[in-house]
């Protein structure tokens, strides 16, 4: 050390200026983050609508999960445990948070995909759940492309639980981007699909290519193997504020959201009209999914998710009615097994959200009942015994009864 560094260190202004106080503040912030680590983790889970059980945090044992328990945050963790489709019949069921959220969760509760797997396993059929909160159709397409990229993960049946307000969403979440970035064969299949359908589905194709460009052009956001990402992880081990930045980000976003809701008087049931260009894009993606399945000889099944009959919802009634008509027509036109399971789960099997009835997420009973309804409605396709004439027969939907 020469005189210059010594000069700086011996400068009174350094010790009496803002620097030491800043360091103290940063230390306090880090201590606070460290102390609240568990709570942050819990809030992150709550944001993902993962079932929160006493004493159990994330990272459900991957080997026994039977679904993507990271809820889209880390697909690669669970991907190796997808049942081998070359050895038995595989059914994939995909959708949004309803697929994995459990209101008033108890230890031992199971979600739709697990209930279906239990029921179908004796028939030599395995069921895998691949869901994420707010899943949009581009993400469902990405799931499909990923599943179809390898014979071992190519299912016989792909069931998609369609949720109307997810047609407001676009883009691939970071977990999906990371997954694609880490699997060149999936990136390639994604590009090929976009090119193949560029004329038929120009909006979806352009969006797919834009998403790919964003992933490949990203500096570190989705890259896991760079010096920068390793450095961040290392710093994160030493500095709690950095280590918990993603959880803090979630909490920060939630607080901003609550502030927005208070200021603008927004409630969970405030009407959320469709955003036309996103709606059109999501419709194209759904059509693309149907074509993809046809190309890969995979049975595509679509159903409209159950909603709480007791709770008001944020849908504009006329738009929702038009959507249901459109999707029923779409399924008929494409010859897809389709059902509207909107009324399958009775009012007492839901739960509460923000002090009022939850319109979209149910208790475990709801999961069992939905799983039963899916099996009852689409059973022949799940077992591989359906005839083409069966398609017209599935419009009659089971009504609430004992699960």
């Amino acid at each position: 050390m020469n005189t210059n560094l010594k000069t700086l260190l011996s400068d009174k202004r350094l010790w009496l200026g803002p620097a030491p106080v800043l360091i103290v503040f940063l230390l306090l912030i880090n201590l606070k983050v460290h102390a609240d680590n568990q709570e942050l983790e819990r809030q992150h889970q709550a944001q993902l609508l993962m079932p929160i059980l006493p004493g159990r945090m994330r990272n459900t044992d991957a080997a026994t999960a039977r679904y993507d328990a990271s809820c889209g945050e880390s697909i690669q963790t669970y991907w190796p445990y997808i049942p081998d489709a070359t050895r038995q019949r595989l059914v994939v069921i995909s959708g949004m948070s309803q697929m994995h959220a459990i209101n008033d969760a108890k230890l031992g509760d199971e979600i739709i995909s697990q209930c279906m797997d239990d029921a179908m396993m004796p028939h030599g059929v395995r069921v895998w759940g691949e869901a994420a909160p707010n899943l949009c159709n581009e993400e469902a397409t990405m799931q499909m492309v990923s599943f179809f990229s390898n014979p071992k993960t190519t299912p016989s049946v792909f069931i998609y639980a369609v949720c109307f307000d997810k047609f407001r969403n676009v883009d691939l979440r970071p977990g999906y981007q990371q997954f694609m970035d880490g699997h060149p064969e999936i990136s390639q299949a994604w590009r090929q699909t976009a090119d193949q359908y560029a004329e038929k589905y120009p909006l979806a194709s352009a969006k797919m290519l834009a998403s790919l460009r964003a992933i490949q052009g990203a500096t570190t956001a989705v890259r896991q193997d760079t010096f920068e990402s390793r450095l961040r992880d290392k710093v994160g081990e030493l500095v709690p504020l950095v280590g918990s930045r993603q959880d803090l980000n979630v909490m920060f976003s939630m607080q901003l959201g609550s502030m927005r809701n208070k200021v603008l008087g927004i409630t969970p049931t405030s009407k959320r009209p469709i955003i036309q260009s996103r709606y059109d894009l999501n419709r194209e993606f759904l059509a693309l999914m149907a074509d993809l399945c046809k190309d890969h000889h995979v049975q595509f099944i679509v159903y409209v998710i159950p909603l709480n009959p007791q709770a008001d919802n944020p849908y504009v009634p006329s738009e929702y009615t038009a959507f249901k008509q459109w999707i029923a027509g779409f399924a008929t036109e494409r010859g897809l097994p389709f059902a509207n399971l909107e009324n399958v789960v009775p009012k007492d099997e839901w739960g509460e959200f923000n002090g009022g009835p939850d319109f979209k997420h149910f208790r475990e009973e709801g999961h069992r009942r939905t799983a039963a309804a899916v099996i009852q409605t689409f059973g022949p396709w799940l077992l591989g015994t359906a005839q083409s004439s069966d398609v017209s027969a599935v419009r009659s939907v089971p009504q609430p009864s004992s699960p």
Partner: protein
Amino acid sequence: MIFTSYTYLLFLIAAFLIHWSLPGRLRKPFLVFASYVFYCSWKWQYGFLLLGVSLFNWCYARWVVSRVQSMSSLVLGIMVNLGALIYFKYTYFILGNVSAIAHVLGLNWHSPTLNIILPLGISFFTFQGIAYLFDVAAGEEPLEHLLDFLLFKSLWPQLIAGPIVRLHEIREQILTPRLLDYSNVAEGSQRILFGFFKKVALADNLAAPVEMVFSSLSVPNAMDAAAAMLGFGMQIYFDFSAYSDIAIGTALLFGYRLPENFNWPYTARSPRDFWNRWHMTLSRWIRDYLFTPMSFASRKRPALMPLWLLVAMALCGLWHGAAWTFVLWGVWHGLLLVGDAFLAKKFPAPAGQPTETFTLKSFPGMIITFVLVNLGWLLFRAQSVKQALVFVRSMITVHGGVRPGILRENAVLMIGVMFAGLIFAQLIHRPAERLMSLMRQHPSRAVNWTMYLVKPAIYAAMIACIIIVDQEAQAFVYFQF
């Protein structure tokens, strides 16, 4: 190595400690070495390009331009500098246009497939090299030692995206030993922090919704178009001024003071005022090395001045990017400047222009300038002129109503909140500066204690915010230029 990455922070801390631990005579060589490490961390092969261009400029200025001392000696020097820039940046553009012309003429010629990767910062270090040769030709003493010149040319804070530093602005600093001074370190660290905040918390969060609208195949409605235009206007300001802040702050840590590049550009009261506040080092470059020589050459025909202004600004646009949208963006600003000059002649401002940022009188000019500048950003950001026109049409005809059709309501809300924040910051920055200076002049124990706690609390909040909202080192917009 992106400025807002952890890698850069590690590099900066290491460079700072090593630099100030070394004996004085080794500091300059170390800074040159560190600058090349910084540059080569992106693509090491292009380090040779930078070195080659630097060696040429140093030799040519020292042994040709300074001896001949005439503008004619500049021609070769400028051609060599521009040659590299044209090859790396404009080859595709030129071939694409030649191919289009051939197509129009009915010739069956297609441009060959090339794989040219644009070297980072080439636009900036080319302009710096040309300015150096010009200044030497105009009588300025060239830098005698190669090491001094290499430092001038490659000092990493200004290497990739400016500020475009001219010889007279830094010569004394290069030639005299730098001292580690607390006030420089404090100011430098503060500038870096502000730069991080602007880039990570503001610019990067605006980038996604802006990209969504501009890359959408759907026609944006009035709300989407307006939000995207406003969002991009803020994004590019926060992004580029953040880069300049970090560059200036970094240089200060090593005892060098680079020229300022931004001065609240959205408070400009006229297009001319805007260019005195936006990318100031580029504006001066365009004025001194492009517009002034052209005007001087035709000084007997003053009627040509507006034409030179248009040409200079069109070239300024082309410098930003090899596409006609950028050229038109430059022409748009040229037209604004010509109109501004015409109006200033017709309605000369009374003596004693207001110096305050916001006065009632300056308000209309400020709003009009802001709107015109933001309309220009449409050309800058759009993928084609047609797309820019579609945006303008949507806004004028209130196409599709005022409910967003591409963006989510949250994105529109965020852009609105940031815009309100920008206006608020513009309104309060001068009164706040006055208050601070008043407090410094009349210190009191209570005020001192308050400041002693408030300043670090704000810094800590900013650091926490940067870490939390960080989207992991996104590239700066100006890197593509």
